[in-house]
């Protein structure tokens, strides 16, 4: 077996251990509300603009591109359905997660790695505070809860943008556009997107925290932890998304 494979297995092991320990901590110890609210502000509120812009322009461009081709095939009425379904099930959750992995995952890893190299995490333990409870659980909860909320808003923005592009800009009939969406897009399509978002939140938080906590000493390792958190988090989102799609389609249709 190659070294890369061994590293991958070890990495997955570390992630699983950290994830399990964090979940155990959330259910067995009191949540640090001050820290959690701070993280909600950082993860949720401060990411709002980025995620809304992502949703807006993804919805707009996807609708425009679909309408160009469907118009030639005289399938204008299907544009809204395709765009909205794509937004709910794939583009909304995945692109929001990629933005959050870049914005939040990387900075979480950088902060934790800096704390690790400056012995602040050892200091916490020396002062008899459990770092998972004080640092990791609040980040994990904030990211896991914020992700579906942000994704919901991205989906809403994308759908609105799709309407604005298709109807006023490209001349699709407005009444039919909405009617077709209402007839063909169900609550469970949105639900699939939100469930995915929840798991993406778990993945991004776990990868970022693991990269931060396992950083070795030195400025270089902080940089590496930061990059790894963003890149590995994004890759994990993209790969897991494929399997979520298969599983959720089988379960929910």
């Amino acid at each position, binding site marked *: 077996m190659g070294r890369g494979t061994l590293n991958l297995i070890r990495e997955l092991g570390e992630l699983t251990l950290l994830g399990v320990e964090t979940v155990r901590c959330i259910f067995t110890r009191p949540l640090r509300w001050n820290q959690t609210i701070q993280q909600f502000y950082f993860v949720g509120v401060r990411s709002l603009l980025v995620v809304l812009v992502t949703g807006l322009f993804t919805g707009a461009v996807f609708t425009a591109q679909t309408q160009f081709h469907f118009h030639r095939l005289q399938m204008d009425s299907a544009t809204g359905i395709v765009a909205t379904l794509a937004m709910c099930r794939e583009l909304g959750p995945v692109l929001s997660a990629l933005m959050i992995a870049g914005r939040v995952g990387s900075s979480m890893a950088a902060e934790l790695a800096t*704390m690790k190299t*400056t012995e602040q995490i050892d*200091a916490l*333990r*020396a*002062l*008899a505070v*459990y770092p998972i409870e004080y640092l990791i659980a609040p980040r994990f909860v904030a990211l896991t809860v914020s992700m579906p909320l942000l994704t919901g808003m991205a989906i809403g923005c994308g759908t609105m943008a799709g309407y604005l592009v298709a109807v006023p800009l490209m001349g699709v009939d407005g009444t039919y556009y909405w009617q077709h969406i209402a007839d063909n897009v169900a609550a469970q399509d949105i639900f699939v997107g939100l469930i995915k978002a929840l798991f993406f939140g778990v993945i991004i938080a776990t990868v970022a925290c693991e990269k931060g906590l396992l950083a070795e000493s030195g400025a270089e390792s902080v940089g590496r932890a930061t990059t790894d958190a963003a890149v590995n988090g994004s890759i994990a989102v993209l790969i897991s998304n494929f399997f979520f799609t298969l599983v959720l389609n089988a379960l929910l249709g």
Partner: protein
Amino acid sequence: MPDDIAIRYAGVEKRLGRQQVLRGVDLEIRRGECLVVIGRSGGGKSVLLKHLIGLMKPDAGRIEVDGQDVVPLSEVQLVPIRKKIGIVFQGGALFDSLDVEANLAFPLREEKSIPEAEIADRVRDALDAVGMLGHEKKMPGELSGGMKKRVALARAIIRRPEAVLYDEPTTGLDPIMADSIDQLIVRTRERYGVTSVVVTHDMHSAYTIAHRIAMLHEGRIYTVDTVDRIRNSSDPVIHRFVNGISSEGPSP
């Protein structure tokens, strides 16, 4: 000096990566004394301190605090031990996100039972003890290296521990600031009667504060002796180290 043993290392071994850092450390630290551990940089001195409060676990050996072996203890079981022992990390390890006052109050607030008024009093006392009154609202980033160490010392003693560990307290400080930290270590020991374990390679500092000096050499305690006997030792290993003579230099 009372002779009862507060801390005991017995056959402690630790490997980090490919390097065997500790190769069987045996060391006894008496209650109320100031023991200085000297040794080369990267020789495992900090590792020795971190083992004492369970931040690292040895591969073999026993580490006793007041007769209790701390090696098998879990994070939760270590809490009472950690409350008994304060540690001053090399860079201070103050929490970046909290100001000086909040850094000091942190260990007290964690107790959950101390009223805020008492916390404020104890923070003021601790800052006074290290000469940092008036800096309560500063963030760690605004403090010089010496000031950080003072605040870190105040944080380490605020829970009134029985022992304080110092990891390279004077490294990176100018001689005047280093001396003031040395005086602070002595005063802290006298004022609170704490057992002090100081890890350093600064011999000036070691001579100033130590009751006894232990030399860590090639993963073992090479010798433990009084300041005078270490200073005047004719043993080549000790002589070279305390006088700062590299192996390229002339023989004693």
